[in-house]
C-alpha cells in the first residue's frame, strides 16, 4: 500500500516498533433499543423509531433491555473476559445535537467485563498470539446529524434519532498489536467471533461496527511507550490499515526529523489518505462521568452467567480444530469455511450428509463459491441446498458418474434447482462401468483409427491417452476412463 508520507528507508523504519490498541464499537442486534421499546431496524424514515425515552423528553426514564445484557455478556464470555457481578452505568456528559439527553448512558469505572483476549493468526512476520482485551462495556448509541442533502443544508443541520439508544458494546484492546496487518487481523477475527455469536451485524458501512485506534511508536530498545495518538473515523478494514500505515510513517518521520509527538486525537481522511489533528476544542472534553441515578446497578449473578455461558455457540476456532481433527480438513480449508457463520453452517450440513467432508469442502470452496461470487450472493442466500451438494458427492463416491460428469450435473442443479440424483437419473447420464459395453464402444474407435492403432502397437505408448480420449468422446463422457484404459491395453498389448 502506498504511503502518503514516504521517504523513510527500510532500516530507519525497522528501528522503530509501532504499538497499537483498538477501541471497537459494536451495535448489538437486539430487537429493541437499550433503554426503551423502540425498534432498532436500520433504514427506517428519520425519527420514526423514537419515543419519549430515546428523544430525551423531560421526565422520561431509561429501563435496561435484558437482551442487550445477554448479548454483551455472551461476547464477554466468548472473549474470555471476567464478568463483573455488579456493574454500574454512568452518565458521560457532553453537548451534541444528536445526543438528546446531553449525556450518554455508558459504563465507566465499573464496566460489565474485563481482562479477556483473542488469538490472532500469524501476520507480518509476527507469530500467532493472544491479544489482550482490557474491558467491554455496555452503552447507548447517539442519533445521527445530517449536514448534507437538504435544500437548506447551507444554514441548517438535521437530526435523525432512530439510532439514539441503540445498544452498543465498546471492546477495548490492550496495546498489544505491533503492525497494521495485526490490527487488521485482530479486527477481522473479532468480527468473525461477533458474527458467530449472533450479537451484531458487524456492518461497517451501516456503522454497526466502528473502530478507533490508539497508535504510538518507540525505538526498538526503548521500554517506554511513545505519545499515544488516537485516530478516529476508521470505518472500513482498508481505512484502518491505511491510516495506521500513514500514521506510523508520520510519527517515525517526525521523530527522525527531531520533532516531538504529543498525545492528541486525529481524524483519518480517506480521500487524502492522511490523518489530521482535530481542533483542540473538540479534544478538550471533560466528560464529568458520574453514576447514572436512574438505573440500579446491573447484577449478573452466577446463575445468569451460567445460563449465558451455556448458550454460547461453538466458536470458529473450536470448529476449525474439530474439522481438522475429526474430518481431516487442512487448516487453510477450515479457516476459509468458517468465514461466516452461514458458510460454516452450510458446510457442516453438507459434510454430515455426504459423509465425505474433504470432497464436500472442495466442492463448496470451488464450484459453489465461484458461482456465489459471480452472482454477488452471500452465504445466507445460497439457492442450492446443502443436501444437493451432499448428494452429488455421494453419487460421485459411488462411482455412478465421473468427476467431469459431476461438474456438468452441478451446473444443471445450480441452474434448475433440481436434485443431482434426479438429474443423473433422468438424463441417463450414468457412468459406463460394464466391460462389455466399453468393448463395444472400443470396437468402433479401433476401427476408425487404424493408423494410431498400428503406431501404438509398434511402441508409441503415448497414443494410449488419445485412444482413451476417443472412447470418452464416443461415449459422450460416460465411460469410466480407468476401465477404458484397461480394456485398450488388454486388447492391444
Amino acid at each position: 500500500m502506498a504511503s502518503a508520507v514516504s521517504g523513510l528507508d527500510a532500516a530507519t523504519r525497522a528501528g522503530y516498533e509501532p504499538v497499537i490498541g483498538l477501541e471497537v464499537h459494536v451495535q448489538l442486534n437486539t430487537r429493541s433499543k437499550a433503554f426503551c421499546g423502540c425498534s432498532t431496524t436500520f433504514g427506517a424514515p428519520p425519527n420514526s423509531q423514537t419515543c419519549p425515552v430515546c428523544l430525551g423528553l423531560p421526565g422520561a426514564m431509561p429501563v435496561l433491555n435484558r437482551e442487550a445484557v445477554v448479548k454483551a455478556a455472551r461476547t464477554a464470555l466468548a472473549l474470555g473476559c471476567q464478568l463483573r457481578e455488579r456493574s454500574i452505568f454512568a452518565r458521560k456528559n457532553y453537548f451534541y445535537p444528536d445526543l438528546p439527553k446531553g449525556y450518554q448512558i455508558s459504563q465507566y469505572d465499573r464496566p460489565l467485563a474485563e481482562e479477556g483476549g483473542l488469538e490472532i493468526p500469524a501476520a507480518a512476520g509476527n507469530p500467532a498470539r493472544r491479544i489482550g482485551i482490557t474491558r467491554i462495556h455496555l452503552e447507548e448509541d447517539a442519533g445521527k446529524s445530517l449536514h448534507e442533502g437538504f435544500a437548506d443544508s447551507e444554514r441548517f443541520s438535521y437530526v435523525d434519532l432512530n439510532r439514539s439508544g441503540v445498544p452498543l458494546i465498546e471492546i477495548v484492546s490492550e496495546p498489544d498489536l505491533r503492525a497494521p496487518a495485526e490490527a487488521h487481523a485482530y479486527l477481522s477475527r473479532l468480527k468473525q467471533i461477533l458474527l458467530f455469536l449472533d450479537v451484531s451485524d458487524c456492518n461497517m458501512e451501516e456503522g454497526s461496527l466502528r473502530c478507533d485506534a490508539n497508535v504510538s511508536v518507540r525505538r526498538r530498545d526503548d521500554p517506554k511507550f511513545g505519545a499515544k495518538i488516537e485516530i478516529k473515523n476508521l470505518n472500513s478494514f482498508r481505512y484502518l490499515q491505511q491510516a495506521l500505515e500513514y500514521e506510523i510513517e508520520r510519527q517515525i518521520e517526525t521523530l527522525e526529523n527531531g520533532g516531538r509527538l504529543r498525545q492528541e486525537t486525529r481524524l483519518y481522511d480517506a480521500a487524502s489518505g492522511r490523518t489530521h489533528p482535530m481542533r483542540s476544542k473538540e479534544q478538550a472534553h471533560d466528560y464529568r462521568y458520574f453514576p447514572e441515578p436512574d438505573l440500579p446497578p446491573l447484577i449478573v449473578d452466577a446463575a445468569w452467567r451460567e445460563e449465558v455461558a451455556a448458550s454460547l455457540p461453538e466458536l470458529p476456532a473450536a470448529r476449525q480444530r474439530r474439522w481438522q481433527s475429526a474430518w481431516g480438513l487442512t487448516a487453510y480449508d477450515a479457516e476459509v469455511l468458517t468465514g461466516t457463520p452461514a458458510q460454516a453452517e452450510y458446510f457442516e450440513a453438507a459434510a454430515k450428509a455426504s459423509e465425505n467432508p474433504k470432497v464436500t469442502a472442495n466442492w463448496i470452496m470451488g464450484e459453489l463459491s465461484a458461482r456465489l461470487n459471480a452472482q454477488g450472493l452471500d452465504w445466507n442466500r445460497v439457492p442450492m441446498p446443502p443436501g444437493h451438494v451432499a448428494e452429488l458427492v455421494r453419487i460421485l463416491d459411488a462411482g455412478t458418474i465421473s468427476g467431469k460428469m459431476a461438474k456438468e450435473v452441478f451446473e444443471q442443479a445450480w441452474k434448475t434447482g433440481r436434485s443431482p440424483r434426479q438429474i443423473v437419473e433422468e438424463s441417463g447420464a450414468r457412468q459406463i462401468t460394464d466391460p462389455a459395453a466399453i468393448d463395444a464402444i472400443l470396437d468402433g474407435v479401433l476401427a476408425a483409427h487404424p493408423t494410431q492403432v498400428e503406431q501404438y502397437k509398434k511402441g508409441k505408448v503415448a497414443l494410449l491417452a488419445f485412444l482413451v480420449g476417443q472412447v470418452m468422446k464416443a461415449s459422450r463422457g460416460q465411460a469410466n476412463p480407468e476401465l477404458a484404459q484397461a480394456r485398450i491395453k488388454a486388447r492391444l498389448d
Partner: protein
Amino acid sequence: MSDTYPATIAAIRAGLAQGEFTARALAGHYYERIAATEAPAAPAANAWLTLCRERAEVQADRVDALARQGQPLPPLAGLPLAVKDVISMRGVRTTCGSRMLEHYIAPYDATVIEKLETAGALLLGKVNCDEFAMGSSTENSAFGPTRNPRDPSRVPGGSSGGSAAVVANGSALAALGSDTGGSIRQPAAFCGVVGLLPTYGRVSRYGLVAFGSSLDHIGPLTRSVDDAARLLGVLAGPDPRDATCADVPVPDYAAQLAALPAGFRIGVVKEAWGGGLDSQVEATVRRALDRLAGAGCDIVEVSLPHLHASIATYYIVATAEASANLARFDGVRYGLRAEAESLGEMYRKTREAGFGAEVKRRILLGTYVLSSGYYDAYYRKAQLARALLARDLDRAFAQADLLVTPTTPGTAFKIGERISNPLEMYLADIYTVPADLAGIPAISVPCGEAAGLPVGLQFMGRHFDETRVLQAARLWESLHTPPA
C-alpha cells in the same frame, strides 16, 4: 371555601355514590374557586399556571356515569386535584416554572397521572413552582411568585409552593408535589397543610421532570392525613417504566390509620434543637411533643451526628445530577430555541435566555463538583457523607420507630426577603434534606402557629414504613384538631 361540598376524599366519594351532587358540578365549583383566588383583587394567588377544564370535565362525566349506574366508584372519585407543573400530562403545557418550557406541551402522561385518572381524580390543572423545582419559596418561577394564602405578602414555601397554596386556599382539595430536598414538606408547613414524602422508589418518577434523580420524589399535599393516606394508596407501587421504582407490596394505608400500636417510640433528634431554629417554632414543637407523650407515645432522644453535613452533601449531589438532567434543554428538539448563527451560539443563547438565575447557579455548581480534579473532593466525598448520614439514621431507627423534628427552622418569610441570599435559603432545608438523602418516608403536619403563621411538625420513618409515619401524623392530627 366550599360550604356546599364535602372536603375529604372519603366524603366526596360517598356523596357522589349517594347522588347528593355530581362530579361535574363539583368541578365547576372548584373552577369558580380558582377564578376567585386568581382574581387580581384578592390579591391574586398566582398559583395556577394552566387549567385543563375540558379534561377534568370529561373525567367528571365518567365518574358521574358510574354513579348513575350504581357501580362502585374508584378510590379517588371526584377528587379535585392540582398537579405541580413539573409532572408531564399528555397534551398539557408542562412549564416547570421556566421560560425554557413556557410553550412545551408534553406528549405523554406521567405514571402518576395515569394512576390518578384511573382512580377517578379530576385533574383541574397545573400549578406554580420554583423553576425546575429549584428553590424554597416559589420566587424562582419564571411566572412570578405565588402568594401564601395565610399572608399574601409572604411566600408559600417551595418548590411546591403552588401545590401548597391551592390546597390551603381551597381551590383544590389536594395536590401533587415533588420533593428533592423538602419541596413538599416545607411549603406544606408554611401554608398549614399536610405534605407527604414517600420512600424513594415507592412512587414512580416516570414523567416527573428530573432535578436530582437520586433524590426526586412525587408525593401528595392534602388537608388531612386521611386524604394523604388515600392518595398514597393510589400513587404507590412498582412501574415497569421506572427502574428505581420498587416492587414492594402496598398496604391499605387509610384502613390502618387508626391502628397505632401502644408504646410507639418517637425519637427526638438531639441535633435539631438550636442553630437557626426560631424560638417560637421550637416552643410550638416542644408543646406538640409533650402532648404526644401525654397520649402514650414513648419519647426518646436520638442522635444524628452527621446532620450538620447534610446541607452541603445535598447541594453537591442534587446540583451534580441537575447539571446532567438539565443538559437536554439545548434548543434542539423542544422548548425555547434562540436564533443563532452557529451551534455553540445557539446553545449559549438558548440557555442564557431560558434559565433563571438560581437554575444557572445550580448548573454551574453541579458542573464544577463533577469536573476532573474536583470530583473526589466534592462528589465522591458527598457520596461518603450520604452513606454516613444513612448509617446515623439506621442507628436512630434501632432506638425509635419514628423520628421527629420541626419541618423548618422558621415560618413563611416575606416575598423578596431572602432572594438575594441563597445560602440562607439553603440552610433552612436542614430538617427536610436528611429524609431525601436517605430515601426514607417523612410527613409534615400542621402543629400550631408561631406569630400567627403555620408551623409544621415532621415525622420520619423507616424505608417503606409509610404506614407508621401516617399513623403518627394521624394521631397528632387528632390531638391537635379534635373532631368537630
